[in-house]
């Protein structure tokens, strides 16, 4: 695997960073944190339209740019760096990957162009009250054929929780159970029987909603009962995506801590000249570069559609989540008193770090999963000749 960025990818990074420096500075992040929707529709329109972010990885036939996961990772790393308040994870990663993965051509034609051009916000409603991402058996929402529509339509009932951008998405992809197993169904957020409750999130830059479905009219996507393997892959992609975002955030707080340590004077010298501060920052550097390596490996594995994506995803998510929390925590420590105030941006990153560590499985969960894969891998190779 040759982990080198192409010139185009490097240019994409520069373009996105310039754009976000202008459209997502700290003041703007703080403004959006206090709004009901939590993102800026104008900026999203530009991100989707001018920069083509929303359709970056979508095939050209659906209005996308046909790029790979490495490009998306570059965008997410930059988004994480600037704490971009926008529905990238929900719409571009979760919803678009689910639609593509289910292989329902008609649905792709109906929904993906709207996602690509930024007019459709979509999300995946998978988790329920327990907040578990990997628990297929625990999903209790149900889907049933709708008798009124000659049995061609469906209805969904149940309660979903921790739905990313569930308060603003217009298209809800809902995981529900039928006799055949788990399916994904598309539900219009404005349809009858859909009740959305925005939650107060620790990370105010990324919102969630609870959504209750009461016989809400739904459209079955792909084959009935065949959704779980698709969702497993979507969750692996999502884990890699959030890992890239975490690396962007972790690198940003390390920069922030280094800059402060260079300039803040105590005891007559910059605090960055104290060995305790130096070694703390050196250790964060090890963590960030390790995390970055794991995240990039995840991106390239996803882009190459390689079979060890589950392993690469767990490696990335296990590593990057902890690296980000550690960096965000120690950044505050380096800043001292000013770092624990509301006015300083350090806490925004700490909250994002804690919140994103939980998404798509905690590092402790991914370590168990990683061990399982590695053990299976070795058992397979070690089987006697």
């Amino acid at each position, binding site marked *: 695997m040759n982990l080198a960025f192409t010139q185009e990818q490097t240019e994409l990074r520069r373009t996105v960073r310039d754009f976000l420096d202008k459209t997502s500075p700290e003041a703007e992040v703080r403004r959006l944190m206090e709004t009901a929707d939590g993102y800026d529709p104008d900026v999203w329109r530009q991100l989707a339209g001018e920069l083509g972010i929303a359709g970056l990885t979508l095939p050209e036939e659906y209005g996308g740019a046909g790029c790979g996961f490495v490009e998306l990772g570059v965008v997410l790393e930059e988004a994480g760096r600037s704490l971009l308040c926008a529905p990238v994870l929900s719409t571009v990663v979760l919803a678009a990957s689910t639609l593509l993965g289910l292989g329902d051509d008609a649905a792709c034609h109906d929904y993906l162009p709207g996602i690509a051009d930024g007019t459709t916000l979509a999300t995946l409603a998978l988790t329920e009250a327990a907040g578990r991402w990997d628990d297929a058996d625990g999903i209790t929402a149900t889907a049933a054929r709708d008798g009124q529509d000659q049995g061609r339509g469906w209805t969904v009932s149940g309660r979903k929780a921790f739905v990313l951008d569930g308060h603003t998405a217009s298209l809800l992809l809902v995981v529900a159970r039928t006799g055949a197993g788990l399916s994904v169904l598309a539900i219009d957020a404005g349809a009858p029987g859909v009740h959305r409750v925005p939650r107060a999130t620790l990370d105010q830059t990324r919102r969630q909603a609870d959504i209750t479905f009461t016989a809400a009219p739904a459209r079955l996507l792909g084959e009935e009962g065949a959704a779980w393997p698709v969702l497993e892959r979507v969750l692996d992609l999502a884990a890699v995506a959030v890992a890239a975002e975490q690396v962007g955030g972790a690198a940003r707080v390390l920069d922030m801590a280094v800059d402060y340590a260079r300039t803040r004077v*105590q*005891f007559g010298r910059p605090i960055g000249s104290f060995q305790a501060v130096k070694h703390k920052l050196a250790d964060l550097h090890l963590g960030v570069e390790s995390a970055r390596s794991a995240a990039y490996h995840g991106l390239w594995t996803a882009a190459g559609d390689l079979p060890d994506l589950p392993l690469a995803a767990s490696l990335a998510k296990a590593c990057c989540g902890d690296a980000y929390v550690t960096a965000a925590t120690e950044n505050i420590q380096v800043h001292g008193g000013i*770092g624990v105030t*509301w006015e300083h941006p350090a806490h925004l990153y700490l909250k994002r770090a804690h919140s994103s560590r939980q998404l798509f499985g*905690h590092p402790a969960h991914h370590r168990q999963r990683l061990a399982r894969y590695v053990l299976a891998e070795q058992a397979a190779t070690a089987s006697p000749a």
Partner: protein
Amino acid sequence: MQHSSAPAPGSTAGGPAQFEGRAQFEGRVREWFGANAPRKGSPEDFSAVHVVSARSPQEYHEQEEHAITVTRAWQRRLFDAGLAGRSWPAECGGHGAPDWQDEVVAAEQARWGVSTKMFAVALEMVPAVLFGHGTHEQRVAYLPPVLRGEHGWCQLLSEPGAGSDLASVSTRATPMDGGWSVTGQKVWTSNAGCSDYALLIARTGSREEGRAGLSCFALKMEQPGIDIRPLRQMSGAYHFNEVFLDNAFVPENGLIGGLGDGWAVLRTMLASERAAIGGGTSARSATQLVGLARQLGCSDDPGVRDLLAQAVIRERTLDLLRARIAAGHTVPAAGPTTKLLYSEHARLSADAATTILGMAVTLVDDPQSAPWIERLLFAPGLRLGGGTDEIQRNTIAERGLGLPR
């Protein structure tokens, strides 16, 4: 609530049974608390005192006002029962009893969930400073109103440019007729708005003199020239204040210690603060973590069990270390050692809670996660207040282990 239906142990003060044995004293104190400690839901209920969670300056002021009122009343009750300042000299309003009697009272307070924490500076740092550096007149003037719950105190130490490096304090006290005029900016002051006095460190010498140019003062807080601005914490809550001093006045007898002795006074103050932080009762976060895991039904998970055990180990060993210190064991740099263990415990336990809570920790409106998020966002401050973790480690190494500066 019944008032003083049990005999107040203080009623025997001065009598022949004045310094009864520990068991006997404990028995009396327990009996008195059983009859007098506020019940949950009563107006004096301390469980409602949460200054830390105020979501606006207005709410902060209201909560602070409520908390100080409740604390004043309770402190007065303790005083009237002869339970306040057991170990303080009689001339300062106390009873001249052995130190352990104060510990007995404190333990009983902790057991009942009542707290004089709002008076912590007044009850712990002020006497440490005055007995170490003050004059007889100052002790007699300042200490009795504290015991009676009349005077609360705060600290005016840190400045935006003087965090860990307190020797670089630049707030200036300029001599004037009858005292000093003080101008400068202080920060990280708890209870600034409801305190009667402040322990103030200000520069009386030149900048070049460094720590030798500092002096300590008792500053009356209610006077013109003092502007208090609540400071919003990263949790969104208000707890600390910035205090702007513009020609605030301190009378001549408000100087504590000699002119230029401020650094020595500050060291006494910080040591007593560290001991108070590290020596208090643990927040019982390990016990609560165990309860959380049971509630969430994940207490059979070996990974969760390992986290619980680590928390229990940290919490119990810290409690046991405090017990050893209380029992007279020689523990080098005991203050910074317990303070650092405490801040690490707080941080690691909050982090363990995030693992146990899972996705719920992403929601502040989840009743199970809310108290843990509060701790998670409070823990970083614990690593800074009363001297950063790094400063504690320096102190342990230099004063505890004798390593060269």
